[in-house]
Every structure is written in C-alpha cells, then in structure tokens.
C-alpha cells in the first residue's frame, strides 16, 4: 500500500475573492501537501478561481452545506489513502502554521486532532454568543465523554485514517459536525486531542456555518445528546 501524505481539504462556498490570498499563504507554509478545494455549489466562480490557481477541485453538483462538503473531501482523502486529512476553512480564519502542530499530534498516535483557539494569545475568539456557545459545548462534551476539549466547534481538524473512516460514514452528522462529531469519535474509541490554533477574523461576512445560530445551537444540543447514546453499530451507518 502506497500511503500518501497530508491532504488539505478546503471547503468553500462563494470564496472566490479570498481564495488567492488563502491558497498563497497555504502554499508558502505547506509546500509539500496536496490540496483539494471542495466547491459547495458556489455561484461566484470559486471553482474556476481555484483551477486558475492550480488547486484541484471537487465540485459538488449543488450546495450540500458545510459538513457534507467537508465529508466529500474526507472521502477523497480516504480513497486516495492519505495518512492525514486536514480540514481548513477558506475564509481566512485558520492559520496554516498551526497545521504542523496538528500533524505532529497525529504522528504521535492521535486519530483526531482539533485546532483550538482557546488560551492562544492574540487568537480571534469571536462575539460573546459564540464564546458562550463554545463554553457550553465544551462543558457538554466533557460531561458526556470526559474529554477535556476547549474548542469543540473548531473547523480546523486533522484526521488520521480511523477518523476519516468514521467521518465518511453515510449517516454521519453532515450539517456542521463539530461537538457531536467529537462525542461520536470518542464513542468509536478514537484518540482525540487538541492543539493550539491562531484563529483570525474571517475575511468575509458569511462564514459558512454562520447565521441561524439559534437553530444551530438547538440542533447541536440534540445531536450531542443523541451522539452520546449511539451504539457501535450506529456509528457505521
């Protein structure tokens, strides 16, 4: 089996404007990694812009939402047998220099590594409802799993093969898998860790999983509780 290196999965919905800067920075920091932009039904030519920049594109036929776009990229990584898939948002809020720390944790045996902005000096921590939500979900994840993860809603994640397989399951939560995904990972006996991440302000107003915050919180709360009740067989569905 020829194992391949790191695949950076870049979910994007209408990010044409930011792409050049984000990809440029990624390339200069991670010259050896493979990139895959997942174009989630963009209407602003994001896919064409990515091709112009020489980034391979996975084009979804219509908009599936953040979680399903990320999942499509993970499926590609799984099939191409990448030893590590890193999900990295294209709105400019993630810092490519944090990937090294995540990759190192994975190399030391972690199946799933989360980039956490909590406790990182200078990291952009978002508005107060966001911070409150993060605290709430962190507390819930700890209550349900015993895992002490400070930033369960982070989109910056590194997935080893076992985590890729879990996240690629057909019925894995695909709206915005974050806190619930961590609970599921723990129930699947994956080793979950976190590493510091230097979050920045998003370059645009529409962060992909922004808006409808109340619905999101409600869905996530329920999804978390159900995730905690999942049996092993449910995880493979």
């Amino acid at each position, binding site marked *: 089996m020829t194992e391949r290196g790191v695949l950076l999965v870049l979910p994007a919905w209408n990010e044409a404007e930011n792409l050049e800067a984000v990809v440029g920075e990624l390339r200069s920091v991670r010259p050896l990694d493979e990139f895959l932009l997942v174009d989630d039904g963009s209407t602003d030519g994001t896919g064409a812009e990515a091709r112009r920049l020489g980034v391979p594109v996975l*084009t979804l036929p219509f908009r599936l939402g953040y979680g399903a776009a990320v999942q499509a990229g993970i499926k590609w990584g799984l099939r191409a047998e990448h030893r590590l898939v890193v999900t990295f948002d294209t709105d400019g809020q993630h810092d490519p220099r944090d990937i090294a720390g995540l990759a190192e944790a994975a190399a030391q045996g972690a199946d799933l590594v989360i980039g956490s902005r909590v406790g990182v000096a200078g990291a952009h921590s978002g508005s107060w409802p966001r911070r409150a939500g993060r605290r709430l979900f962190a507390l819930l994840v700890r209550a349900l799993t015993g895992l002490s993860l400070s930033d369960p809603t982070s989109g910056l994640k590194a997935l080893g093969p076992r985590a890729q397989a879990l996240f690629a399951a057909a019925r894995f939560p695909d709206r915005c898998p974050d806190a619930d995904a961590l609970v599921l990972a723990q129930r699947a006996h994956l080793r979950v860790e976190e590493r510091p991440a230097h979050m920045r302000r998003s370059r645009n107003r529409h962060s992909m999983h922004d808006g409808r915050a109340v619905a999101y919180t409600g869905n996530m709360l329920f999804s978390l509780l159900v995730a905690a009740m999942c049996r092993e067989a449910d995880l493979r569905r």
Partner: protein
Amino acid sequence: MPLRQKVFFLAVAVVLLLTIVDLVRRRRMRVEYSWLWIAAGASIIALILQYDLLIHLTALIGTAVTTSTLFFLCILFLAVLSLSYSVQLSRLSWEVKELAQEVALLRREREQATPAQPGRA
C-alpha cells in the same frame, strides 16, 4: 349506527381504498408507502361493520364518548403518517447527499485520469 351513516362512510372508505389501489397500479405510489393508507381504509370499514369494536375501544382507553375515540384515532393516524414521512425524507436526503458526493468524486477521478487539454481550464 343509522343505516344512512353506515352507507355514507362505507362509500368513503371504498373510494379511498380504490384510489389507493389505482395509485399503486398506475405506479404513482410505491407499494411500501401504500400500506398505511390501506390500513386506514380497512379500519374505517371494520369500525362500520363492527360498531361494537369502537365501543369496546372507548371503554378500554377510557374516553367519554365514541366520537372522541374516533378523533383520537384520526389524529394518531396523521401523526404516524407524518412521522413516517420524516423518516423517509431523512433517508432520501442522506441518499441525495451520498449521490451528490459520489458524482463529485467520480468527476474528479475522471478529470485526474484525463488531464484537461491546454486552453480548457
């Protein structure tokens, strides 16, 4: 139960059942989705022919009058129906998501196998 009522509701039930059979016959509805409706039509007929059933049922669940039992059954039926729709819709949306991702993955595989010609981005 007066004869007039019996005949009326029997006619309604028969029309309902025939409509369902016709929908399935013309492939407008899948057999799997028809059983709940068939059950509804069949229970109307059963209750008309055996009105005692409704009286027994009323006594069993403790409602005051038979009409309440009927209303309860109707609402229960509608609730079960929408629940089954939610399940089917969820399954469909998962399937659509899987298909869309698969289309994207296959397209990417094909692109990789046959590199784009120069001038064609």
